[in-house]
């Protein structure tokens, strides 16, 4: 679910065109549809995968975004939406992609999560922002919190960086994903793990996914 209502983007990775969608998360929050009506099934090429994968996109229409920002929405309804979606679509996992900042929907998503993954780049700005998010998340009693270091330059020592971040945050680092030119070239025009299944970055993402399902 793309709860980054202010700047949605996940639909691009799954190559879902907003033109063919009847509803978005915005419509659900305005009570114009049910949450399961927003969900679109996204095909996966990886034959080994069993089950289904759904995407709940937010609207990319600038008018819709402006309306949500100015009028706000009912947070309770979003919470209900999470629960109803799990129930109606019989979901095993609900992955919520949030806005990078700590706004109300992010806090709500953190509050109801079983597991929180903070994805950060190794730069000062992210170090500070992530530290605040982690402290707030631990106040909300999230049981399982972990960090993923992303776009790490090749010149960095992954093991050293991992232990440094773990020491200063007090939370485990699940993966140190190196900066990858292939990733940048792909530029969100598809699922990286499908395009480059043998790539070290794909291996790392798969290992994170495997731990999520434990």
């Amino acid at each position: 679910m793309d709860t980054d209502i202010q700047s949605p983007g996940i639909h691009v990775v799954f190559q879902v065109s907003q033109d063919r969608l009847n509803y978005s998360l915005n419509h659900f929050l305005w009570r114009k549809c049910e949450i399961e009506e927003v969900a679109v099934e996204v095909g996966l090429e990886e034959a080994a995968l069993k089950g289904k994968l759904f995407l709940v996109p937010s609207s990319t229409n600038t008018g819709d975004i402006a309306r949500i920002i100015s009028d706000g929405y009912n947070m309770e309804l979003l919470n209900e939406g999470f629960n109803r979606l799990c129930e109606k679509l019989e979901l095993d996992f609900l992955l919520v992609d949030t806005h990078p900042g700590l706004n109300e929907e992010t806090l709500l998503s953190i509050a109801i999560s079983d597991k929180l993954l903070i994805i950060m780049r190794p730069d000062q700005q992210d170090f500070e922002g992530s530290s605040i998010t982690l402290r707030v998340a631990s106040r909300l009693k999230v049981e399982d919190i972990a960090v993923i270091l992303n776009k790490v330059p090749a010149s960095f020592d992954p093991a050293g960086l991992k232990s440094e971040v773990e020491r200063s945050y007090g939370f485990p680092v699940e993966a140190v994903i190196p900066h990858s030119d292939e990733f940048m070239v792909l530029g969100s025009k598809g699922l990286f793990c499908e395009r480059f299944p043998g790539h070290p970055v794909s291996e790392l993402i798969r290992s994170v996914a495997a731990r999520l399902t434990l």
Partner: protein
Amino acid sequence: MIIIAAALAYGLLNKLLSGWVLPGAEFISIRPQLVLSVCFSLMGGPWIGGLIGLTGNLFGDLLTGFELQFWHWSVANFLIGFIPGTVRWTGTLEIRRVNEFGKVLLFIFLGNLSGLFLGFLVHMLINGQSFGFVMVSWYLPALISNTYLLMFLMPPTLVLSGYLKLNIETRSMFFVLFFSLAIVTLLSAVFLMAESKVFAETTLPGKKEILQKMILTHFHWIGILLILIVIAGGAIGYYFSRKYMHPLRQLAEASNRLKSGQWDKTDRVDPVKNSDYMGNLVGVFNDMARDIHSREIQMKNTIRELELRIDKTREDRIVSEITETDFFKDLEKKSAELRRMKK
């Protein structure tokens, strides 16, 4: 273009200065044009120097009307121009240190040693003269006069051309070299005056032959003196360089490192094994650098601690701004309830 001009000038000077011989010793010619090929060789590489020597000499011979009669001297001039430039292959692209100065002078000397040897060897074979005679009467005087002339002319020419960089080290070597050559010149003048007096008083027949022999003997002595004095001068220069210039250079480099913050705690200037000013200076510098470095580290650590404290305070403020809101407090309660229900 410049190379062709240099070769033409070389040939022209060969023709014009062909009459420049040592007074009283017509068999010893004075050839300052060698400076051209040697200088270009050091600046632009051996092939350029060699070509200037070869073509310049051929051109000079054509002007004089010798044509290719003395081809072996053109080859000799090629070697005199070629060999000094090979010093570039050893990494000496300019002179900044006293050892580079010495190396360049040695290569110039080797160029003359081999070039002239080849020239006189072929000359001897063509004319059927004895080896000992040619070597003693022709080769050695020519080698000495060329070396003497080049030792005098090369350093100022190389300074003008920018190959020799003047600094405290090269200046001292420059001074030692000129001082040594001045002594040689003075001593030879005294010898010559004394010989002239003896010669004027003698009434023996065949004065010219006697004079030639005397000048030749005199020249050999000058040669030995020249070599001895240059070696001694070089050794003195090297000793002073090792004792004073090396620590000075190290001090200058270390000061720069200290200034730009590249000083490591294990860095230090090699101690000087004596108790004079230099030894004292190096010792004080090492102590000072160590103190500055440790103070700097201490200061950086203090700043880092302060920054961390400021960051922590800022972070605490932001976290409390979020967690003190009614929305968050409500969320905290609901979240706890939800988690309890799930369990």
